[in-house]
């Protein structure tokens, strides 16, 4: 069964705790040219005189169609059966960027060595019965882990509801 990380835009204030928790989880060395797997894009909109400031909380969707996977010439991209996580083996990656061209959201990022990097859904944490690092850290409960099939349903009450 596939899983995905969902962000409730009404709750997210773009604090960046998820971005940094991901860097901590993955030991991202920014000075060495590594890049994080999650990032934020601010959107400011006026509608009927009312301002809204919301954030796109962006990382790999681990989508069921995974268009990045078949286009990889070296087989570096695979899918974890248990969690549905789409994974990249950097040792096989040749940095051709075909995955980025195929991805509807241009999620794949490339480090200074040209190796593709992206969210792996913290699939090993999931297998150990834990939440992804970004979901665990979120101070407002905006990020939740959900079954991918819930994509179009209304969000369930998240795990921080008791707060």
């Amino acid at each position, binding site marked *: 069964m596939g899983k995905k990380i969902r962000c409730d835009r009404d709750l997210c204030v773009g*604090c960046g705790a998820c971005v940094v928790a991901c860097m901590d989880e*993955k030991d991202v060395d920014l000075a060495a040219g590594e890049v994080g797997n999650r990032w934020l894009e601010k959107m400011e909109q006026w509608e009927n005189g009312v*301002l809204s400031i919301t954030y796109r909380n962006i990382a790999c969707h681990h989508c069921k169609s995974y268009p990045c996977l078949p286009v990889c010439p070296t087989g570096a991209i695979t899918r974890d059966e248990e969690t549905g996580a789409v994974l990249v083996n950097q040792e096989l990656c040749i940095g051709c960027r075909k995955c980025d061209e195929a991805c509807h959201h241009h999620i794949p990022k490339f480090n200074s060595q040209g190796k593709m990097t992206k969210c792996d859904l913290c699939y090993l944490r999931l297998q150990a019965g834990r939440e992804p690092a970004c979901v665990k850290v979120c101070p407002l409960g905006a990020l939740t882990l959900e079954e991918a099939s819930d994509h179009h349903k209304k969000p369930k009450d998240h795990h921080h509801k008791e707060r």
Partner: protein
Amino acid sequence: MRKTPYLPELDPDIQVRKSICTICDPNSQCGLDLYIKDGQIVKVEGDKNQPYGQGTLCVKGAALRQYVYNEDRVKTPLKRTGPRGSGQYTPITWEEAYEEIATKLGVYKDAGTPEQVLFFSGYAKFFRPWLKRLAHSYGTPNYTSESSSCAQAMNLSQALVFGTSGGPHVGGGLECLLVWSNNPFASNPGGARGINNMVKKGVKLIVVDPRNTPSALKADIHLQVRPGTDGALALAMGHVIIAENLCDMDYVAKYTHGFEEYKTYVQEFTPERGEELTGVPAQKIIEAARMFATAKASGIQPSAAPVVHNTNGVQNYRAIFSLLGLTGNFDVPGGQTVNPPSFFHLPGQFPTRQDEFMQSRPYEEMAPIIGANLFPVWTEIITDEGQAMYLPEQIRTANPYPIKAVVAFGMNHRMWSDSKAMAAALEQLDFFVDVELFMTDTAKLADIILPACSSVERSEFRCWPNGYVVYTTPAIPPLYESRNDIDIICQMATYIAPEDTLLGSGIEASLDWLLQPSGLTVEQMKPHTGGMFIPNPQPAPIGKYLENGFNTPSGKIEFYSEVLKKHGIDPLPVYKAPLHSQVPTPEVVKEYPMILNTGSRLPMFIHTRTYRLAWSASLRKAPAIDIHPEDGAALGLSQGDLVKVVSPMDEVRGEVNLTFLAQKGVVHLYHGYREGDANSLIPWDYRDPISGYPGYKGYICRLERVEEG
């Protein structure tokens, strides 16, 4: 980049130890689960059993490893060998450092002028009772802290009105919350969850803020006030409440002092006049006043500093807090209630003998405290510390007496207005000791630098308002030769105040002494490494002040302050526009047409403490200058353009960030950047005359494009 998570279930060599994060000190402290392998913290998570953080962390805490294992950490005690500021030091032993300090500070004590030595605490705060005691045991009245420009003026304002400080009684039937310039979504996740919960429960939310913060965008009514005009807004709300007979007249008659004078004064503050002064539409002022006054119970969530970082700050806040007296909302269930401090400034529902511990020598036996000459109201009300904003002036002028030496635990000269002058004043000292985690620009001015450790390397006591306490255990030993600040204080005491045997007895014995009335002991708390609820919480009774009287000269809530009157200051919460603004100084404003509003919180920073953490700092380019897109268009500025912010004092550079978060006509600039130091833009005497607080939130400036190349 790591592939395999560090989890004990995958690697038996990994241990999880508890601690607390104190990167952002005030009122927070989220619990930590630290994943440790081979003595190194390899992963940081929130402790889900700890009630404050509830398993989560903020963006700063998530970057904790880069705070602890930072290349800028001071590793050993250091003695200066080159000119001040050069960063040339030689390592010395702790004993050599203490002996040097004892020799240098001994001079002032022997000469009978210990007041010429000033002690100062920046962040963190856990050691402050010990540092204050050390200062007084040594013989100086001059214990001071960064609270000289933080929450104390807000406390002072409340104390002038109520004789104490209160907060909204959440969960007690609160129906309307008036948040006055507080955005916990950037500064305090627990507070942010509190606001979300209240909104969910249908509590009406009024938010006063110049910016479109997450708090403001969630509000039922957002009053987008012009910086520094908060007092006029509160007085206009008071006008509406009186004009529409929405006062609680029984309460006013029984429990307040000076209502008639207040009523006469607010007559001129019609909603229309309010709009003119504050920029908030008159209709919104009316709606907010009605909402606040007609709710069954209303409370005000103040912020530490934004309102008081203005030249009329204390009076503005008095006008705000007066609304509680007017509507009968102080010391009643669901309104504004008092949860008195147990340890340091924090409520914990238990008694201590902290005051006795801290005041090891009565003030009467020492010289006048710093600031007493200029800010006597502060000295009368804020009895726990001097007003350190006066420090550079006193060093420079020796008035009323010289300050020759400073012993600081975490000092940042960029906290002061005209920050370059503060750095220059520190260079003028005979002797300057700075205890620090990092080799900062201020530390580089010190003669002796002592390495402090972070929260995860030490033991400390902490309490929370809900009766939760912890005495932490070091999760890792102190790195390098660093030490716990309290150990440093207690060890220093044996050199400079040897007769204070309680301080000399060390952290655990002195903490046990301080906590004695509570029944809590270190031994009892130690096994609970993540913290525990105290066995016998003693919540403060509501209605105590209504029954027994208020701790003010009149014994009542004072619209008309007898303390201010005594000091020759206007007793009513009078409104004055910011000293430099359109009304009093149109000729100056012609050259500097924009309002300079500095220091509003950003989620990834807490003052300058996380600038050196690459992970969190990557979220915001430094230094960015937030302006409204329409101002950008009018000035021909685009996103990312390099500009100068020019004030009558100085100029700083930064990149334009166009955002509707900003208020039109206002330049929002974060503080403390080495390359764009907001406080250098503000003159030292641009301050509130009662509290001495600099007008950080409402000065004047203009923007100029910087041509590249």
